[in-house]
C-alpha cells in the first residue's frame, strides 16, 4: 500500500503550481494512492542489472550547424501574451529574490 497523504498532494500541487481546492486534494489523494499501488509493480522486475531506456530509438550526436535562422518578430512573440508592455511580457509582482 502506498502512503500518499493529503499533505503530500498539497506539496506536489505547490511544486506543480496548481492551486487545488480542498475537495480536489481529497479526491486526488485517494486516486493517486490507488494509481501508485498499481504502477508500483514496475519495481518487481526493475532489477539493478537492467539498464534504463530513456529514448526508444537510440541515436547519438544529433547536432545543428551554428548558423543563424529565422526569428520571430516582436509582434509575433507578444501576440499570444495575456499582457505585455514596452515590448516585453508583463507579469505581476514576483515575491522573492532575483535569480
Amino acid at each position, binding site marked *: 500500500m502506498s502512503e500518499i497523504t493529503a499533505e503530500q498532494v498539497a506539496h506536489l500541487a505547490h511544486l506543480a503550481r496548481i492551486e487545488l481546492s480542498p475537495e480536489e486534494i481529497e479526491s486526488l489523494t485517494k486516486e493517486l494512492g490507488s494509481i501508485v499501488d498499481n504502477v508500483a509493480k514496475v519495481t518487481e522486475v526493475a532489477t539493478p542489472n537492467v539498464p534504463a531506456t530513456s529514448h526508444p530509438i537510440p541515436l547519438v550526436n544529433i547536432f545543428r550547424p551554428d548558423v543563424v535562422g529565422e526569428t520571430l518578430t516582436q509582434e509575433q512573440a507578444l501576440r*499570444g501574451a495575456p499582457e505585455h508592455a514596452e515590448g516585453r511580457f508583463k507579469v505581476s509582482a514576483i515575491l522573492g529574490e532575483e535569480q
Partner: protein
Amino acid sequence: MTTANDLIHISAADLAERLSSGEVSSVEATRAHLDRIEAVDGDVHAYLHVAADAALERAAEVDRLRAEGDAGLGPLAGVPVAIKDVLCTIDMPSTAGSRILEGWVPPYDATVVRKLREAHLIPLGKTNMDEFAMGSSTEHSAYGPTRNPWDLDRIPGGSGGGSAAAVAAFEAPFALGSDTGGSIRQPAAVTASVGVKPTYGGVSRYGAIALASSLDQVGPVSRTVLDSALLHDVIGGHDPRDSTSIPDTWPSMAAAARAGRREGAMKGMRVGVVKQLNGEGFQAGVTQRFTEALALLEEAGAEIVEIDAPHFEYAIAAYYLILPAEASSNLAKFDSVRFGLRVNPPGGGTVEQVMSATREAGFGPEVKRRIILGTYALSAGYYDAYYGSAQKVRTLIQRDFDAAFGRVDVLVTPSAPTTAFRLGEKLDDPLAMYLNDLTTIPANLAGVPGIGLPIGLAPEDGLPVGIQFMAPARADARLYTVGAALEQILEDRWGGPLLSQAPELAVATAGGTN
C-alpha cells in the same frame, strides 16, 4: 458523373485520381466536405474549428494551378484533410483540447502541417481531442466530447476521437492524429477506421504540442490502408528541427500498401500472436473477430505463431509513470506568461499565485491528476523507485520485442479490449480508463510502429472491432502491406468497407444545430 455524396464517401486515393483527371475540382470536393461537416458535426462534434473560407480559397488556388498545368502538384493536391488540434497551425487556433490554450493561434506551423501545405492538401479544420491527448474517450476535451458515428451515445475513442470520428462520419477523407499510448489506434478500432502510429522518429514532432516526448508520434488516420500510406508519405521523413527524428530515407508506404493488395501478399508471412495480449480481459466479440481474422490470415498463407512477451504485463504500469513524469514537465510552460489563459486571483496576487490560479482553472481533472502523479514520480526520494524502474521496464519490453521479431515478421493483437463504451461510463474510474490502451502501449514504449484497422462488428453489440499489427522499428512499410492484404480479404467478404454498414447520421437542415 460524381455527386457530392460520392465525393465524401470515396477514398482519398480515388478522390486524388478524380482531381488529377479533372473530373472534379478541389473546390467541389472541399465544398462537399464542408457541407457534410455543416450537416452532421452538430451531433458528432469532431471539429473544434472549421476553416471553411481558407479551405475554399486554397482549393481554388490548387484548381487554378492545375488548370495552368502545374507539374509541381503532388499526388494528393487538392484533397481535403483534417488536423488534430494538438498540431500547431499558423492560421487556426491550436488548443490541444484545453481551456488553457483557448483561442491561441501559434506563430508557426508544425512541420507535418507545413508538409501538408507544401503538398497542396486542403486543411478543413482542427479536430477534437482529450485535453493534451490525455484520455481514451475524448470526454476529457475542455470543449465537450466527440460522439461515435456508429452510436452517438458512445465514445469515439481517444485521445484522437475527433480525427477518427471525422473520418468515420465522412467529414474528411483522412486526418492527422498523434499517438502516445494508442491515441490513433484505439479510436480507429472503435470507429472502424484505419490509423497508424509510425516508428518513433519517423514523423517529425516539431509543432506537435508535447504530451510525453519519448512516446508521442504523429501519424495518419483514414478509412483505407492505402490512404493512411499516402498521407504517411507526405508527412514522414527527417526533420532537422526534431532531434529525435530518424535521419534515414524511407521506402514509399503507398507502394507497400499497393503491394498488399496483390495476390499472395501474405504468403510465408510469419505473424506472432502475443500470448499476454489475448483472451483474458477482452470482450467476447472482440476475441471472436480477432480469432476469425487470424484464421483468414492463415488461409491467405501466413504462418501464425504464439509469442511470449513476459514483460508486456508491466507496460501499463511503466507507461503511467513515464507519461505523467514527462507530461508534468512538458506542461509546465502553461503558466500565463507568454501565451494562453491568465487567471488573476481575487484581489490580484504575486506571479506565483497567478500561475497557480491559472493552472487550477485552465487544466481539467485528468490533466491535473497526471501532472500531480508525474511530479510525484520525479520527486526526490521516489525517482529511482518509480521513474527509474519504469525506464528499466522499457528496456525489458524492448527486449521482448527484439526476441519476438527474431521469430516473426509482425506481431498481432486486438487494437482495444472492448468495443466503444458509453459516454460517462468510465469517466470516474481512471484506472479502468487506462486499461483501454492495454494492447497499444507496448509499441509506444519500444518505439515500434503499429497499425490499426477494422475486422468486423462484435456480435453482441454490433459495434466495430479493430486489429493491430506491430513491426520492428523502421519497418513501417511492412505494416501497410499486411494491413492492406487483410483489408482486401475482409472487404471481399463484406462486399465493401465496414463503414458502409454504419448507421446513417441524421442530417441537420440549413440553419440547424451547430
